[in-house]
Every structure is written in structure tokens, then in C-alpha cells.
């Protein structure tokens, strides 16, 4: 079959480059409901290039063994692959190797920090400085994904600390005028997202980190929507902890990353306990390894780390700055196209605010499920619902929205298709005439 839907030149990629990129993603050639797939749900999970699939297959066909145990050749090869992958990811985000902890996903990474603080607070090891209790405060923002909200609600409930939040303004930005009154000397943890998974807006990490440092609070950055899309230098950002998920950045599911400053990781007691994270064990107690092994109990996911390393290499080969430029152009096109449609309200549309290639919107009179169903009929995959951010949606007076999210393989033509689709959905459901 000849290619009749060749991608349009956008941002930093030439037509040919974008076509080459797309050729690495077999799934992008799928036909859905009789139409070529238009995948605009990369914010939920990205598609995977063959290089990632090949790396996992190669690992299973040549190197597979359990890591950090056993003395046979394959065990050594597997351990080497596992630790090499850690080094690749560490370099990608500007961290040292021992500052990278493997988790199942970002959610587990946040829970790890919350439960480790909880364990420290119960006197189960760790540095006294990390204990929290009544009178202490944990601060999040109103735009957090549930994964960066509920673990802190639970930590507050377990320790007697108080949970507070930084509100958002109508344009979707954080109300920084209130930052100093909310983040105070009582604040022990400030957890916030780098890029909102609903608004696509990039938060001012520098401002938040500066305030947290001034009051001695630990910072936890949700980098799920930034690590895949922007150049990420965690050391330069100055955060204490950060999390992201492999599957949103071309990698496999089941692998996530927790970054923690070395001294802080080593000041925390473990969360999950068991094999491979100890030095000496008696029937009564155990001594724990330093980070990162302290936080990697049990048989580890290995092929997933190998896949993630391949994904990172793929992103680095293309170039994160070029990816960011490509997606920023798609994001602007998306927001401009959607905002021009009658009845469409883009959440947090904010001219001048830096955004990634993602937008969520409400079509007046049509539920997001129905918008999504209409688009799916044309092979267009978008996310519908509350995107695991109910408080954010409540803030904007809606229950659910439709979200289109692009990635390096997305094209301007695809953005135009989703905009046209939303226009036609309005007609189909009879909200425009």
C-alpha cells in the first residue's frame, strides 16, 4: 500500500525524519475502525519503537538471569545489563547512578518516598530530620495527578501531619502569590508536578524549589509528563526526589524510576523489604544495604530496565531538544485549533506559559466519553474522563474532559484531524447547527 498520509513538516523534524521515526513504530501503521490509527494518547502511555522491543528480545534470548545473585555467566551478564541501564537513565536526567532506584512505575516511586518517611516517623530507622508528625505540613498543588496526592493524604493521616495545597488560577498556572503563605517553616514536604498531565503547562520548578529550600522542606517532583518530552536535568532543577514512568517515554510497562539525592536516599529507611536489599539477617532483625539496593527488594524486573535504556538511547539519538521543539509546535497548533471551535473550552489555556504537546478540553453539551467515541470511530485515540485529576477538574467546574496528547511521532496532520473530528462531533451530537 502506498503512503497517502505522509506526515507534514513540523518543528524541528524534516518530513523525511518524521517519516523515519514513524517507521520505527509498527503500531502506527494499524488501521482502527477502517481508518489509519491517529494515536494522540501518549500522555497515558507512549508507543514503543522496534529498538525497544529488540532490546528486550535480545536480553531474553542472550542474557536472561536473576540479577545481583548467582555467580554464573548469565547472572553476571544480566546484572551488567541491569546496572548499565541504570547508568543510561542516570545520565539522561543528570543524576549519579546510585541516585536511581528502579520501581514498577512513578506511582510506586511516590509511595516509596511517602512510606519511607512514614517508617522513619515511626522510628524504624532513617535520619531523624526526615521524621514528620503533628504540626508538620505536607504541601501539594491543586493540579496533581492522584498518584501525587493520595500517597500524601495517607502519609498525613498516618503521621498526624496536615496536608495543604497550592491553588491554581483560572489560566491553569499555580497561584504563586500564595506560595510563601502556604509553604512555610512548618512545611516538611513539597510535592508537585513538573508538567500537568491535564493542562500540559510546565510549572516553575525553580520558584518552588527556592521556596522549599528557604524553609527546609524536601521536594518531590512528578516528572511523568516532563521526562518523556523535555530535556530533564534533575541536578540543575535542584529537586530532592523525582519520579517518572518508563512506559510514557517509549519504554516498557512495569518499570519506573525514583531519583533521590544520594544523601537523602541513604537517610531513608526501606519501604519494601525482603531479599537482595540486606547485608546481615538474623531471626530478629536485618541490616540494610545502601541506596539504591535498599529500595529494590525481591527479584527485579530486568528486561524492562533494558527496554527503558533502549528507549532513552532512542530519545537521545533523536535529541530531546528537538523532540521538545516538535511537540511545542504541535501543542500550539492543537490549542489554537481547538480554542477556535465554537463551544470548546481548553482547560488552562494560557498564552505565554510554556506547554508540551498536550491539551484537555470540554465541548459544551457533549460528554467527553461521547467525543472520544466519535473520534475513535475515525481511528483517533484520545483520553477521556478525569485523567486521574479529579480535584483539578472540579476546580474548572467540569467532571471530565477529552485530552489529546502528542509525542515525537505525532504529525501536524494528526493534530488537524483531531481538531476536525471535534468540530464534526459537535455537529453529530447536535450542539452546533
Amino acid at each position: 500500500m502506498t503512503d497517502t498520509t505522509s506526515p507534514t513538516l513540523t518543528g524541528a523534524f524534516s518530513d523525511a525524519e518524521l517519516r523515519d521515526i514513524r517507521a520505527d513504530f509498527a503500531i502506527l501503521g494499524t488501521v482502527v475502525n477502517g481508518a489509519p490509527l491517529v494515536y494522540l494518547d501518549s500522555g497515558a502511555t507512549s508507543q514503543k519503537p522496534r529498538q525497544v522491543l529488540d532490546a528486550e528480545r535480545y536480553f531474553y534470548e542472550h542474557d536472561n538471569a536473576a540479577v545481583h545473585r548467582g555467580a554464573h555467566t548469565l547472572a553476571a551478564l544480566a546484572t551488567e545489563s541491569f546496572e548499565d541501564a541504570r547508568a543510561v537513565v542516570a545520565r539522561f536526567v543528570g543524576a549519579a547512578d546510585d541516585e536511581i532506584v528502579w520501581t514498577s512505575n512513578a506511582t510506586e516511586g511516590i509511595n516509596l518516598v511517602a512510606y519511607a518517611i512514614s517508617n522513619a516517623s515511626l522510628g524504624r530507622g532513617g535520619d531523624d530530620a526526615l521524621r514528620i508528625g503533628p504540626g508538620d505540613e505536607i504541601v501539594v498543588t491543586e493540579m496533581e495527578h492522584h498518584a501525587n496526592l493520595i500517597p500524601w493524604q495517607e502519609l498525613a493521616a498516618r503521621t498526624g501531619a496536615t496536608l495543604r495545597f497550592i491553588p491554581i488560577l483560572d489560566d491553569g498556572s499555580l497561584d504563586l502569590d500564595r506560595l510563601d503563605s502556604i509553604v512555610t517553616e512548618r512545611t516538611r514536604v513539597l510535592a508537585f508536578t513538573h508538567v500537568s498531565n491535564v493542562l500540559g503547562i510546565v510549572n516553575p520548578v525553580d520558584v518552588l524549589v527556592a521556596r522549599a529550600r528557604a524553609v527546609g522542606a524536601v521536594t518531590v517532583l512528578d516528572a511523568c509528563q516532563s521526562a518523556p518530552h523535555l530535556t530533564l536535568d534533575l541536578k540543575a532543577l535542584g529537586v530532592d526526589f523525582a519520579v517518572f514512568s518508563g512506559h510514557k517515554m517509549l519504554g516498557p510497562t512495569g518499570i519506573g524510576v525514583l531519583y533521590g539525592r544520594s544523601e537523602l536516599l541513604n537517610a531513608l529507611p526501606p519501604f519494601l523489604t525482603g531479599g537482595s536489599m540486606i547485608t546481615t539477617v538474623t531471626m530478629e532483625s536485618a541490616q540494610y544495604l545502601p541506596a539504591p539496593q535498599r529500595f529494590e527488594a525481591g527479584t527485579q524486573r530486568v528486561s524492562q530496565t533494558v527496554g527503558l535504556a533502549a528507549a532513552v538511547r532512542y530519545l537521545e539519538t533523536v535529541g530531546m531538544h528537538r523532540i521538545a521543539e516538535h511537540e511545542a509546535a504541535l501543542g500550539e497548533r492543537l490549542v489554537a485549533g481547538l480554542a477556535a471551535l465554537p463551544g470548546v473550552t481548553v482547560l488552562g489555556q494560557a498564552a505565554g506559559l510554556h506547554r508540551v504537546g498536550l491539551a484537555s478540553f470540554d465541548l459544551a453539551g457533549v460528554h467527553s466519553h461521547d467525543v472520544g467515541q466519535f473520534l475513535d470511530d475515525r481511528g483517533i485515540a484520545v483520553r477521556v474522563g478525569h485523567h486521574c485529576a479529579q480535584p483539578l477538574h472540579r476546580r474548572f467546574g467540569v467532571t471530565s474532559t477529552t485530552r489529546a496528547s502528542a509525542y515525537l511521532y505525532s504529525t501536524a496532520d494528526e493534530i488537524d484531524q483531531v481538531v476536525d473530528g471535534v468540530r464534526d462531533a459537535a455537529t453529530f451530537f447536535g450542539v452546533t447547527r
Partner: protein
Amino acid sequence: MSSTELQALYQELILDHSRHPQGFGLKDGAAAQSHQVNPTCGDEVTLQLHVEPGTDTVTAVTWEGHGCAISQSSASLFTEMAVGLTLPDLQGRIDLFRTAMRSRGAIEPDEELLGDAAALGGVSKYIARVKCAMLAWVAAEHAIAQVDAAR
């Protein structure tokens, strides 16, 4: 512009009911009520069964909620169908509807028994939407169980 499958899913009857729902608005005096949420999208419905004491006959269904065209029209169509039925008969209709919804398009809903609600048959081909169509029916089932339990 849109496929025949999509038009079968969103029949004019369904879109009409979603725009002008029957039984919308809660009323005092219900025999039981149930609140149901679809956790994947946050859609919710609170449905009340009004029952004539002694005969177990549904005199009215009232409800409130928000959600997609499928969930809203389904609540409305349920309301139309339920009035006049006894609670055991209503439970039978719910079972019938659920079986059709879960059939992935294999079972056409029985129009004789389900009335206009049979128009929701197209939903069963869309696995992700079955919960939308079932929301009000699950609420009604829960309300019936409460009436039974109160005896």
C-alpha cells in the same frame, strides 16, 4: 462522516433521551435510592424507586446524575420501562438487559420486554461503554435489594 456502527450506537432515540431525560429530579417518598459512580470517568447517578405499598409495583423512577449520552439516555429509558412493573419483574428486566449488554453484540435486547431501552443494544459492541449503559440499572438493582432487605 461517521460509520453505521456509530450511528447505531447513537440512535436519534438515544440522543433525544440524553437531551430530554425522563424522570430527572429526585423526589421525596422513595422506597429506596442508590448512588452509583463509574470510577473510570466519574459519571454518577442517584436513582430512586417509588413503589406502591402492598403491590410492589413501581409507580415512578426519579434520578439525578451527570454523564455521557449513553448513561443519561439509559437512565431515562430505564425510567420509562420500569413504571408499572413489579419489583421481581423489574429485576428480571435488569438481568435481561445485563445479559444483552455483556454479549458483545451477540444478543439483541428483547424489545417486547425492554421497550425503547432495547435501542441501547448497540452499546454491547463497545466494551468500554457497557458500564455507562449499566449505571442506572445497577443503581436500580441496588435499590430493589434495599427494599427486599427492609422487609
